[in-house]
């Protein structure tokens, strides 16, 4: 694992992209294909299942370090990262982790599976004793599925592309979906001959950039843009090739068996088609709250009851492949035509025969409807008009608009320029901070995750957790406040004196069983620290609910 540790140190030791790519190239050019495959696996954010409980690791480390438990806890509080704390308290060694990364994973980590606690401990402690501080840290991170380093998948792809001479988008696609980190896989990944890989493999998703109000001025004439509702569901690709149907989420999870109604409907599609769209909980012509979709995904068994209660649709907005031909370089206006054509000419599926009228362009009006639809596009002559459309988003139960240039290709990753998401203005409320927890990674050891409350009668009830939105300077100040005003400790969580008022922004409301207030905010974030407000002036559960209802009615 030595080479991997050197790579990690190189990646971690620079903020410059070209140096990171150089380090990756050097590494991939030197190590065995077996090791390279595992490195790609971890560097692209994939994880192995945690085979040993974190508490167990901590206990063994405490024994090895011969320190009391409370002292370990103090250290953990200060470091904020378990894998690192363990690496830092273990007795120092002169050792270096001999053997390749694949050897460490396959011959050490995998041997933990199903082993007795004694054997597990022997393997883990043995590994610790055979490695340096940094290697131990990495081993712990890989073991607990918490490995992270400052490279994006795009950088890994860039390095592999430069090394192999294969186009980045081909490598990206070969990295999509499920694959096993083996030498054979890595060889196929950098093979100049081979095709795109397995049949069910999706294309890398093209993502939109957030657009701010004033930026519409920079987009040119509104007429050049298609607008679509920004659906609040699960972004997914629906693939039909060689009579096989696959549904992949943007998180590259295979969801095919979670959505039988979509699969059934997709059997009517022609062969060699890949659609991009959104899976939405949808009933009687209406979008249901996103939460219900999560509930459905969480179910192990999909019985009739849940299928009836929370039906879903695939709202298609793009076609990436037709007749096995990659359409991603065609302009969007062309792809939309093809999409509508492909969907409207599909064979009617037996059970759906009763729907004689496919009201593709009025999805929210239809009473009964198929599970595969086209997301409608809207056009406007001016940005004022477009904004008016956007402002009806709440009533439509969507988050805002997607703006896509008529001529845009289907790219990879998130780029500024051709696809934008234009959300409605968020709701804002004043809340008071009641608890804080230390962050992780870059924010380890600092109190960065906060719980906010509003009034309900004469009581403060938690309504949201948020961690983004403050500057580093403010985070340091809040951190100091938390330390000086702690009223209670519950593990890493500290309750604090409710004196500091923060204005939060959020995109929607959901019922919650986790928060005492009975409601949860969707995408809460901190707008600003309100030094000028007193805790008596903050919102109440009632005022928050009212605010939401009023806006949704507009």
């Amino acid at each position, binding site marked *: 694992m030595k080479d991997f540790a050197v790579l990690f140190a190189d990646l*971690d*030791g*620079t*903020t410059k992209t070209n140096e990171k790519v150089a380090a990756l190239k050097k590494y991939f050019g030197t190590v065995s294909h077996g090791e390279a495959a595992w490195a790609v696996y971890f560097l692209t954010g994939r994880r192995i299942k945690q085979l040993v409980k974190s508490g167990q690791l901590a206990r063994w480390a405490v024994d090895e*370090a011969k*320190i*009391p438990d*409370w*002292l370990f806890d*103090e*250290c953990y509080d*200060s*470091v*904020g*990262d378990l894998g*690192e*704390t363990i690496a*830092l*308290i273990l007795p*120092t060694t002169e050792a270096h982790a001999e053997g390749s990364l694949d050897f460490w994973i396959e011959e050490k980590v995998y041997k933990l599976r199903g082993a007795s606690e004694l054997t597990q401990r022997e393997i883990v402690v043995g590994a610790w004793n055979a490695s340096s501080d940094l290697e131990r*840290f990495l081993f712990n991170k890989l073991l607990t599925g918490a490995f992270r380093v400052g490279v994006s998948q795009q950088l890994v792809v860039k390095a592999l592309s430069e090394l192999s001479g294969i186009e980045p988008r081909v490598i990206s696609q070969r990295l999509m979906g499920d694959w096993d980190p083996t030498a054979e896989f890595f060889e196929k990944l950098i093979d100049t001959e081979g095709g795109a890989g397995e049949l069910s493999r999706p294309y890398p998703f093209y993502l939109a950039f957030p657009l701010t109000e004033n930026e519409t001025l920079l987009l040119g004439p509104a007429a050049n843009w298609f607008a679509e509702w920004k659906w609040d569901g699960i972004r997914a690709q629906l693939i039909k090739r060689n009579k096989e149907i696959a549904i992949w989420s943007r998180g590259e999870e295979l969801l095919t068996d979670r959505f039988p109604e979509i699969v059934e409907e997709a059997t009517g599609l022609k062969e060699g088609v890949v659609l991009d769209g959104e899976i939405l909980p949808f009933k009687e012509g209406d979008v249901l709250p996103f939460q219900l979709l999560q509930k459905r995904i969480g179910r192990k068994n999909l019985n009739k009851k849940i299928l009836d209660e929370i039906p879903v649709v695939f709202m298609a907005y793009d076609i990436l492949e037709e007749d096995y031909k990659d359409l991603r370089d065609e302009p969007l206006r062309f792809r939309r035509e093809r999409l509508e054509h492909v969907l409207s000419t599909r064979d009617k599926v037996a059970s759906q025969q009763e729907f004689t009228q496919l009201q593709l362009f009025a999805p929210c009006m239809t009473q009964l409807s198929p599970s595969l639809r086209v997301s409608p596009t809207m056009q406007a002559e001016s940005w004022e008009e477009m904004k008016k459309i956007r402002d009806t988003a709440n009533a439509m139960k969507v988050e805002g608009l997607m703006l896509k240039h008529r001529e845009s290709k289907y790219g990879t990753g998130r780029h500024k320029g051709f696809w934008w998401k234009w959300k409605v203005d968020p709701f804002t409320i004043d809340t008071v901070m009641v608890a804080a927890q230390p962050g992780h*990674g*870059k*924010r*380890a*050891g*600092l109190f960065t995750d906060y719980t906010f409350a509003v009034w309900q009668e004469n009581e403060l009830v938690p309504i949201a957790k948020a961690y983004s939105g403050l500057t*580093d300077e403010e985070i*340091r100040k809040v*951190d*100091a406040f938390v*330390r000086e005003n702690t009223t209670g400790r519950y593990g890493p969580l500290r309750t604090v004196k409710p004196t500091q008022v923060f204005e939060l922004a959020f995109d929607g409301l959901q019922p919650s069983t986790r928060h005492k207030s009975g409601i949860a905010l969707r995408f809460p974030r901190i707008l600003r620290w309100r030094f000028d407000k007193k805790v008596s002036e903050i919102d109440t559960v009632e005022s928050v609910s009212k605010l939401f209802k009023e806006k949704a009615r507009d």
Partner: protein
Amino acid sequence: MSKALVTSTNSGLYCPQGDFYIDPWRGVDLALVTHAHSDHARSGSKCYLTSEPGQHVLRARLDPGANVESIAYGKKLTIKDVTVSFHPAGHVLGSAQIRIEHKGQVWVVSGDYKTQLDPTCEAIEPIQCHTFITESTFGLPIYRWPSEQDIESQINGWWQRNKEQGRASVLFAYSFGKAQRILSLVDSSIGPIFVHGAVHKLNEQYTTSGVTLPDCKFVGDLDKKADFKGGLIIAPPAAFDSPWTKRFGDYSSGYASGWMRVRGNRRRQSIDRGFTLSDHADWNGLLEIISATGAEEIIVTHGFSQPLIKYLRETGKQARGFKTEYRGEESELAIANEKLAEAYEEDLEKPPAKEDTP
């Protein structure tokens, strides 16, 4: 128990039997100074007593005309009812532990100390005593230092590699003590060495005190077009992210501090490389020195004091804390604090860029 030889007061640590203060943070009549770092040596007292090797640095850092007396390490001096002597603490040039004896009772105030070797100052000598007053800046077992050789080769390797890539290496380090220690361990054959004004000022005092340092060019002496490629620049943390660093062009940044042992501390500062190098004792160093003093009672002043106190109590020692204004605080604030401290100390009110125009 016999009467305390040192108490904690609003002005600082006080010895009633000798009627003097140690490292006071307010002006007093007589201040015994363990070392010249700004949180231990403050202006405003009528008379200062420090170790002989530390006198030049202390004079340079107090208001001009301060009355500074010095005494050789180990030499005994009677002040009122007590006998005092200064003994090396290994922290920075001239740093001392102060031994106080009264009617057979011996107390030692250690100031700040380290156990690692440092060519720019005398090594610590543990002093037998009844009560030992210790710091605890790094009083957690996660803080254990790599060997001096390790750090030396890490820094030299980093510099060498940057040089090969045609870049400058800017290493941020506390300007008094840390900077000189780094200068003494880098391989000056790799390339030219440059220093920030704050470091330059202290280097002069070190040289006056007889410490040999490699040749360094003061950045402020160079003209605008000076070429820093392949060079090593030593600067205080306060210069980090300031316009002053612009002139080095494409450079790699490093930071030498004990806090760099923990990854998050470095990552929060967006520093390329962290080097775990401290002028304070690590966890093992604290325990080693505490044990070597044979003291029955330990008083902890600053840093991670609570864990150290609890740990010592569990190992059967009497331990308690003194509230002081010495810095050390909690790790997450340390770098920001060090930056503030350094800024305060060097009075960098004037824009750093001014250094270019003498």
